[in-house]
């Protein structure tokens, strides 16, 4: 089996060719997958909105408000749900980087009176079986109908009102922080409306 000689020129050329070929193919695939990736993200958002807000017939995604905050890296997204032009709820995406494995991003739907209608988890990479249980109904249902102004979003261990996830206190804290962030933004936008 004759292989190429390991001369400096041969080695450099071979690696260069392979790298260029790799780079080109990856760039190509990246372009192809960009569209579907964005589409999938958008679909998830719309699905989440449908789950956290009461029925609406406007287009919240198009009318999204971006609030800059020093608590989050990117702007915070605020969606207003309307039924026949009457506001019926606001969804806010809260996030925290203090999860066990980093980013926890959730969408909270607030009723006009400030109580939580529902929460949907958008992004997380917590430990399967432990932190990922934040998506379970068992955990989420304790938040529904509660007002963050009265219901302390910290885990009971920290003096709050939240029943933490078994073996995932850090995740619970991050979740609470994200929810608090969303609520604070909700209050801000509501006040500016009045």
């Amino acid at each position, binding site marked *: 089996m004759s292989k190429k000689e390991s001369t400096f020129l041969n080695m450099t050329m071979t690696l260069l060719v392979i790298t260029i070929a*790799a*780079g080109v193919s*990856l760039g190509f695939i*990246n372009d192809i997958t960009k569209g579907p990736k964005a589409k999938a993200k958008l679909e998830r958002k719309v699905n989440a909105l449908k789950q956290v807000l009461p029925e609406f017939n406007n287009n919240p995604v198009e009318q999204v408000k971006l609030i800059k905050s020093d608590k989050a*890296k990117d702007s915070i997204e605020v969606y207003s749900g309307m039924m026949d032009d009457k506001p019926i709820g606001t969804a806010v995406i809260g996030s925290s*980087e203090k999860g*066990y*494995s*980093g*980013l926890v991003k959730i969408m909270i739907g607030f009723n006009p009176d400030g109580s939580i209608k529902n929460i949907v988890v958008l992004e997380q*990479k917590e*430990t399967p079986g*432990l932190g990922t249980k934040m998506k379970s109904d068992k955990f989420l249902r304790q938040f529904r109908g509660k007002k963050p102004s009265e219901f302390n979003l910290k885990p009971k261990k920290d003096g709050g009102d939240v029943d933490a996830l078994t*073996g*995932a*206190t*850090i995740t619970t804290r991050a979740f609470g922080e994200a929810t608090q962030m969303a609520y604070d933004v909700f209050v801000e936008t509501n006040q500016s409306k009045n």
Partner: protein
Amino acid sequence: MDYIIILIAAVFVNNIVLSQFLGICPFLGVSNKVSTSVGMSGAVLFVMTIATLATYLLHQFVLVPSGLDYLRTITFILVIAALVQMVEIILKKVSPPLYQALGVFLPLITTNCAVLGVAILALGLESGSLLKAVFFAIANSIGFALALIVFASIREQLELAELPKGMKGVPINLLVAGLLSLAFLGFTGLV
């Protein structure tokens, strides 16, 4: 204060081997003697720290600004491979005794999922803090060392024990690793 939490989390709560399953190959492969485990841990500490430093900077100043984030995996592994080669060469020249001690482990570290894993995990920390990322790498290699050395000392004892034939070798090692992991699970409430 954050740094203490990073340290405790990386070494005990989120131990890189026993909770996150990174670095299992060397964990099972090199841990038959405590002395080799110490050598491997030293090499890992070295490479993991420098690698995380390099990849973090690469990510922040090259990949992200030019939108080439999808090249993350391929550039990171190439950086790690190149770094290992360089470290080998430098170590040979600068400190032959250290090279003697660590040298044989270095090539194995390129395919050590712990190094690439920690480099990627470091990106999830609060952004912009190179110091935290490096500290994270050091803390994780301490966690790796802890798991490896404890496991090796148990294995050295195990050599002398009588075991059912089917359990000898891999199965009993995995079982012991499982018990170690169980012990470390007890740390979950810490942070």
